[in-house]
């Protein structure tokens, strides 16, 4: 395993103003994720999982502390610089799929590829859709696909530009157990093949079991970090 830190956070805190006083959502969270590592962030509702994910991915700004991707600080980048960073380095999978309704499955996968200016985008998109078992449904619109199928399109989209880091936010949260398991299997397989660093947020221990490390959050604090049997 490569031990270079792909993603680091130091003393990461997030406080939100709430009716006169400050609500502490995250408090001094620090850890590092190595390249090609699979880390799961676990915790009950309201423990700050999604907030942490947003901060790590540069979707939101911390109240204090630092986030580094490949050694570059991202917490002080401008909005547009963050966009460009995400284009190059970060992929996402969401609980509610978040496909663009007006684009076909293929076009949804193509969009980030073309944004990143990847050559042979079309072939890559087709190949990924085939890998997730949707080679026959490339011209369907999201509304014409089932939830599991949509999430598989989202996986293909996320892996398209070969992002070094992939963030997944409860990727099976909206799916039944069987479908969820299939999606998770695909996610793990793709990660393996592409050598992607994966940070996955979940409250499902079964899902987290696949991860190499599990970071348990409780009330905005890191409760414990546990080495897993997974990758």
């Amino acid at each position: 395993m490569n031990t270079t830190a792909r993603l680091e956070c130091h003393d990461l805190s997030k406080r939100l103003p709430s009716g006169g006083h400050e609500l502490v959502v995250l408090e001094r969270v620090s850890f590092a994720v190595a390249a090609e590592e699979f880390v799961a962030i676990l915790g009950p509702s309201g423990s700050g999982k999604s907030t942490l994910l947003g901060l790590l991915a540069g979707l939101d700004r911390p109240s204090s502390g630092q986030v580094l991707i490949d050694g570059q600080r991202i917490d002080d980048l401008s909005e547009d610089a963050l966009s460009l960073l995400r284009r190059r380095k970060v992929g996402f999978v969401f609980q509610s799929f978040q496909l663009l309704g007006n684009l076909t499955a293929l076009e949804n996968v193509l969009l980030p590829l073309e944004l990143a200016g990847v050559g042979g985008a079309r072939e890559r998109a087709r190949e990924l859709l085939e890998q997730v078992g949707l080679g026959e449904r490339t011209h369907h619109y999201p509304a014409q696909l089932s939830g599991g199928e949509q999430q598989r399109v989202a996986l293909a989209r996320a892996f398209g530009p070969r992002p070094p880091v992939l963030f997944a936010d409860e990727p099976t949260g909206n799916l039944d157990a069987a479908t969820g398991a299939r999606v998770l299997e695909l996610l793990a397989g793709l990660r393996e093949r592409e050598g992607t660093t994966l940070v996955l947020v979940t409250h499902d221990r079964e899902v987290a079991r696949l991860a190499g490390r599990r970071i348990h959050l409780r009330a905005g604090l890191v409760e414990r970090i546990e080495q897993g049997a997974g990758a």
Partner: protein
Amino acid sequence: MVLSGAVRESRGARGRLVFFVLCLALGVAAVTGVAALVASIESALRAQSRELLGADVSVDSRRAIPAEIDGFLLPGGGERSDVRELTTLASHAEVSRLVELKAVAPSFPFYGQVTLEPRARLGELLTPLTCAVSRDFMGEVGLALGDTLRIGGQEFSIAAAVVDEPGRLDIAFTLGPRVFVSLEGLARTKLETFGSRIRYRALYRLPEGTREDWTQRAKRRITEEYADAAYLRVESHGDAQPTVRRSIERFANFLGLVALLSLILGGTGVAQIVRAWISARTQSVAVLRVIGFRPRDVLAMYLGNVALLALAGSMIGALAGSLLPFAVVVAAPELIPKGHTVAWELGPLLQGLGLGLGVALIFSLPPLTAIWRVAPVRVLRSTVEPLPAPRSVTVCALLVLIVGVFAAAWTQAQQLALAASFTGGLAVLALVLAGSAKALTMLAARVPRTGLDPYLRHGIAALARPGVGVIGATVALGLGVLVVVSMVLIDERLATRLRGALPADAPSVFLVDVQPDQWDGVAAKLVELGATATQSVPVLTARLSSINGVDVKELAARRADDEGVGRQRWVLTREQRLTWMRELPKDNRVVEGALWSDPRCFELSLEQKFAEDLGVGLGDLLTFDVQGVPIELTVTSLRSVEWESFGINFFLVAEPGALDAAPHFLIAASRLEPEGELALQRALAADFPNVSPVRIRPILEKLLAIFSRLALGVRVLGLFTVVTGLTILAGVASSSAVHRGREVALLKTLGLTRLGVVRLLGLEFALVGFVAGTIGACAAFALAYAFLEFVVETPADLPWIALAPTALAVALLSAACGLAASARALTSRPIESLRG
């Protein structure tokens, strides 16, 4: 429960609700404002056209007008004033001249003023012993105030000079200068008892606020119920002047159209917003369905919500609209003179409120049927195949919409035929728009998007998006473009047409009774004085004695038995004026037969409508009694005449050679500067004392003022509609942009910069705008063409070349408005994409 649900529902969608209210308020303001403005302009115009007639209604006859007629016209109060007119000789010292004597009651005229020098009121000035005389005539003969004029064997002292009087432009009957006396003054003379040809006239003033349609009904009742109606000619101020009347009709048609279209535009705006609203509320609808609401309960809730908002919007709009005339008075005082602003009236306000509510509800129905498409299972799964609404619901919503539009159109235009054709035309247009949009989405889905710029691809993909959003937006945008573009095209041309209704070379003076041997001298004088557009025609008076060998008296008697043909009877027996000429003037056009085409007989050309009144057509033989000599003329052509040209025109034109030898005189028309007119008067008085100049400049100026006012009104209303239309158009363009926040957040998460998002969304809005703009602009050009060519009957002469730039401009506008409305969405932060 519905109400509380509605109130709760309105939480959290403030922006869109404000939009809804604004959209409707603008639509209602347009309708109320236009109505108030029209009422104000109409009130001003009515006053002006009443001034032309001097009364609300005038009844004319060769016999004394019985008091019975008052029963038809004055049941609600009002007043009658009698006028008698005759042509007679007036003499001063050695000079005798034919004058037009007008005997009036002190109340004459009801409207307008007889302008006198020195300033005075005619009614107060005239005593049985005094008269007022045309200033021109006084100058011509050399009369001064206080001089005596001998009329009908009695002496009248001249108390004032007449400068101007209200009256119809009735040149054909004007034979000499005007002299006013009182009715008692006329009674002193022996003129009435001699059975001379007196024209009796009763002028009526109707109670304030009498509607024109009431007057028209009263007129019809007189023709139908009064036994001797055949001897009467009844005119209301509404038909005082054919030219003005036609212009006012055109104006009213145009205004009806404008108001209706603004109303519909408001409606489409509402529909678009409701559509966007429902689609953003899909999840809530699904939740409501899950907890046990039936689709119709949800529909009732949303309708209740719409009704509340509509009430607010309509109230704001109605109030703002009623303020419009006041704003116009300040901005364009010449359009509505002081005192004619129709103040706060409950009626139009309530009508605006009702129309606003009605339009909001009926236009909300079709998009609200989308509620049926939301399956409760949506709560559990993020995306579910949409369910179609039951066919009966869709059909009902459409029917309600069509019937509603028709009802609104009827309320607004008060004309069944106009309302029906408006609704029909709109339905066809909406179908064409929807069909084109549908075809376009299909095309967009098929067109290979490979290799396209990803931004452009996204835009095309937006067009191909399954569902009804694009089609709805295209129809609404297209209708908006139709309204705005057609108004821009029509109002300017209509205004130009109105201003040009009086040709620049319209004569300013007529010369009556020029003897044939005097013409060369008179013409030379005119040239010397710088006259332009001089024309002269021979005139011969004659009576029609028979048609195809049947005596006209017999024909007249037959007609008296038929109902409603009194006027045609009068046409048969009156004294006719004929002229002859080789070629027709340019304001005449042969519409049937051919001019001077039959070498076997003497021919006659008739004005189309006059021939209808006479009941004759091509080939009929008319016999005239020309001072005892019967002359036979065969009708070989029918003409249309542009009376607006104010040239000398005749109903009857004979072939040259048929009448030339009969005793006749000449009528000349010429255009002179005001100083030239005075010089001409003096010259004529010196050299040709029998020739009477009749100046029509004051009447021309009055007409010109009316036309300018109409033209200005058209422009102001056109401008108002265009501004309203553009605002609502912007609203429609942006309504679909309001709920884009999440999409923008996602795009940013995927790595798109803000500029990239702007480019992407802008292209999408621009494409929809371009499509709607193209179809809407084509429809607008077609509508403007049809309206101008067939309703206004003026050459449309449209700038077809502007079609493409119009479509592009709409695309730009759509992109700009869409982006402006997405401003908040554009600032949405990528973190929002995590909050599924």
